[in-house]
């Protein structure tokens, strides 16, 4: 029987009102490959940040090598052999492989570097000279160097955040073999953090599953658990919501026809043959793991990107290739994913940001009327219960929830006929999420057509009449009202059409 090399019990951590982790248990066996599974926002990153000493838990105990650690700082975590590979690489691009591997004081292979380099290059199937510059390497090679860096720095507990995200299928297979060798031969303890189901079962021996800040499954056997069971654990019970359908009006308000988009530099397809239509009084949800083409789709529907194949029609008017103004005229409202930076201009005052959509309507002669803009803002503040102090203060002094309410309010106060809402509740506290859901439902009940792009399945199931799943730029599956099934949607998000 193997001992627990690391043991976390009853860990809780809150940020303001948001509970990131709630009574979480997590433990690792020496020489074992573990998987930590969960959706975005489930608490995986917070947990890893606690293990690597970046966050201090509010409650709970941490034992490493059977020793109780009262205060785990990054330095202590490091000295206890905890190392992490982040999704964004932390290599020095202009240095050679050798320099990067030798960089740390903790490096244990300074004397016999060449032997060690040869040994681990073989394990990782890395065929490259130690004198090569990092910038010249492929992404897969960089990934291997990152993991090797942990070994060279004597990390026994290796936390790998989404290690397969950037790898080709062949590289993924090589990584799997390498990690298994490390676990057996070097007795390394490995954690793979991911929201992908595809490889996790093959990679790991034991699995932990998180959902909404809680650990819903602990140390379950990877091989004997089915993908379907995992999806249910990740997404929760398959609940059915009743969605009002009687207010659907037959006229089609938004139509996307055969839309495709290629990256002009690499020629890689970002969107492929997207087709859908939305009627008045209907919410169409688009589910998908972020980075599968959602941002690009939103940009071309809203008129920010004008160059693509296919057609976009709003209220039966062809607006393909036209800009934002054409959409505004047709009462189209857009709530962009990027709140601060697209929807709101950072460094600019609250009042200026509040009239971005309709600033032409608050003018007198050639200038903005102070009284009219103030009235406009006060109206938004009242109607959408926004907590805002000085209207001349910079927008970023508002909380995330209040920023989003201001942005939503600004877009909704014109009574739009078509709304595109992209990740409208990401990163918000529970109360703000409720308020924003209410607003969207109100609009829907008034006969507005809404396209809701989201990663949050709870949200999509609660609000959508119909659901499309986007995967690698394609609509991989669509679900009508009665057929929405959370585990099927989850599988489709992972690229498995069931």
């Amino acid at each position, binding site marked *: 029987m193997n001992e627990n090399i690391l043991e976390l019990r009853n860990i809780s951590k809150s940020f303001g009102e948001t509970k990131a982790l709630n009574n979480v248990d997590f433990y690792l066996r020496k020489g074992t490959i573990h998987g930590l599974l969960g959706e975005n926002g489930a608490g995986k990153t917070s947990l890893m940040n606690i293990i690597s000493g970046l*966050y*201090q838990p509010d409650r709970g105990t941490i034992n490493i090598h059977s020793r109780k650690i009262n205060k785990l700082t990054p330095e202590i975590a490091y000295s206890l052999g905890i190392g992490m590979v982040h999704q964004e690489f932390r290599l020095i691009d202009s240095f050679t492989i050798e320099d990067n591997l030798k960089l740390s004081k903790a490096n244990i292979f300074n004397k016999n570097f060449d032997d060690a380099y040869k040994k681990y290059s073989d394990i990782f199937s890395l065929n490259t000279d130690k004198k090569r510059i990092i910038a010249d390497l492929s992404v897969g090679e960089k990934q291997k160097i990152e993991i090797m860096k942990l070994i060279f720095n004597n990390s026994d507990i290796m936390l790998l955040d989404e290690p397969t995200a950037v790898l080709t299928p062949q590289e993924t297979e090589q990584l799997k073999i390498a990690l298994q060798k490390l676990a057996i031969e070097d007795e390394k303890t490995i954690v793979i953090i991911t929201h992908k189901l595809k490889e996790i079962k093959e990679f790991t021996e034991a699995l932990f599953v998180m959902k909404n800040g809680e650990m819903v499954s602990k140390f379950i056997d990877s091989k004997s658990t089915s993908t379907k069971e995992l999806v249910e654990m990740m997404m929760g019970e398959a609940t059915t919501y009743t969605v009002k359908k009687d207010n659907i009006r037959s006229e089609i308000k938004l139509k996307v026809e055969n839309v495709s988009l290629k990256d002009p530099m690499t020629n890689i397809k970002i969107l492929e043959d997207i087709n859908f239509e939305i009627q008045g009084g209907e919410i169409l949800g688009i589910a998908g793991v972020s980075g599968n083409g959602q941002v690009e789709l939103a940009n071309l529907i*809203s008129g*920010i990107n004008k160059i693509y194949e296919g057609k976009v029609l709003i209220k039966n008017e062809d607006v393909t290739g036209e*800009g*934002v*103004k054409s959409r*505004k005229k047709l009462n189209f409202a*857009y709530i*962009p994913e*990027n709140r601060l*930076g*697209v*929807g*709101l*201009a*950072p*460094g*600019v005052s609250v009042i*200026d940001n509040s009239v*971005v*959509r309709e*600033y*032409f309507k608050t*003018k007198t002669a*050639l*200038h*903005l009327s102070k009284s009219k803009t103030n009235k406009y803002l006060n109206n938004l503040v009242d109607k959408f219960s926004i907590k805002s*102090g*000085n209207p*001349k*203060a*910079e927008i*970023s*002094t508002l909380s995330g929830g209040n920023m989003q309410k201001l942005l939503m309010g600004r877009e909704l106060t014109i009574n739009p006929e078509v709304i595109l809402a992209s990740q409208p509740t990401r990163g918000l506290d529970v109360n703000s999420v409720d308020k924003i859901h209410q607003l969207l439902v109100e609009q829907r009940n008034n006969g507005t057509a809404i396209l809701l792009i989201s990663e949050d399945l709870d949200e999509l199931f609660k609000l959508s009449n119909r659901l499309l799943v986007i995967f690698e730029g394609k609509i991989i599956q669509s679900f009508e009202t009665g057929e929405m099934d959370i585990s099927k949607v989850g599988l489709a998000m992972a690229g498995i059409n069931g």
Partner: protein
Amino acid sequence: MGNFFLSKKQNVSELSTFYSFLIGFVIALMIGTIILIIQEKNPLETFSLMFRLSLGSVNSFTSSLNKAVPLILAGLGISIINSVKFWNIGAEGQIFFGAIAVNYIYINTQVTNSTMLIFVLLISGFVGGAICILIPAITKVFFGVNEIITTLLTNYIAIGITIYLINGPWKDPGSLNFPAAEYIGEEVYLPTIFGKLSFGFIVCITFTVIAFYLKNKSIFGYELRIAGGSELTAIYAGINAKQKAFIAMLIGGGFAGLAGGIELLGQTHRLSTGISQGFGYTAIIVAAITGMRPIGIFLVGCLFGALSIGGSVIQTVGVSTYIADIIQASTLMGALISQFFFNYEIKRKENA
């Protein structure tokens, strides 16, 4: 420092820029005092002499205001361009281009009515400044070339062209050791309105009001602010960010060009390298101290005009004229540092 971080303050007083200017100015006077003591001069006497010679009589007071005109106009131009968060380091060159344009039109014009001609010449100055910034504007807005470098480089080009013109085609045969173009006729001298106070000061007040309206009130100014905050937000709002930024740069260059025109018509009466004594650079200080506020630029411009006059006359008692430059520059340093503490607070990290 690891356990501390900077946090932006929620409620910053609207007067914070003014307070930080005052703090900066006091710090600058202290630095000036120290330097004067090191030089074994009496600081109190020197400062009071500077004060008397720049503001103590009608004559010196109006000279100070005249001196302020190019600082204010160029500063306003810089502040308009800064609405989109671009920096114009080229006001100096734009001042020269404005003067060159005025001289060119003056030589080649058919207009005979002198009031009309002055009006045409002032417009030429504005256009000259805009032409000077044209290439930096195109390269910045459409190709993303760093405008700080390109506008700075146009300064050398503008001064080079000026030197060529006053040594070549426009050379006044009478100017031997100090090359310059021929004097303009008295009929186009800017009139004085009160003592020595030039009509240029009236133009300056007018343009301060224009800049204030443009930046703070107009739809155009609003669009510039949004574009300056985030180009993506501007596109999202349907604002043609590139076009607006381009126009703002030309207008800003025009303001500085007008300053050059006024200097030529009202002060030097001939084109030479003496058209600007670094006004374009001092204007950057003026604009930065005031946080790019037009009214503030007007007031600080007047103060800096007085400082320059004071600085240039204290040479007569053996104090270097650079004491005025040191005070101007350290005011900026002090103001920027205290502005920082008005806007941010240093907090301790939780859990650390």
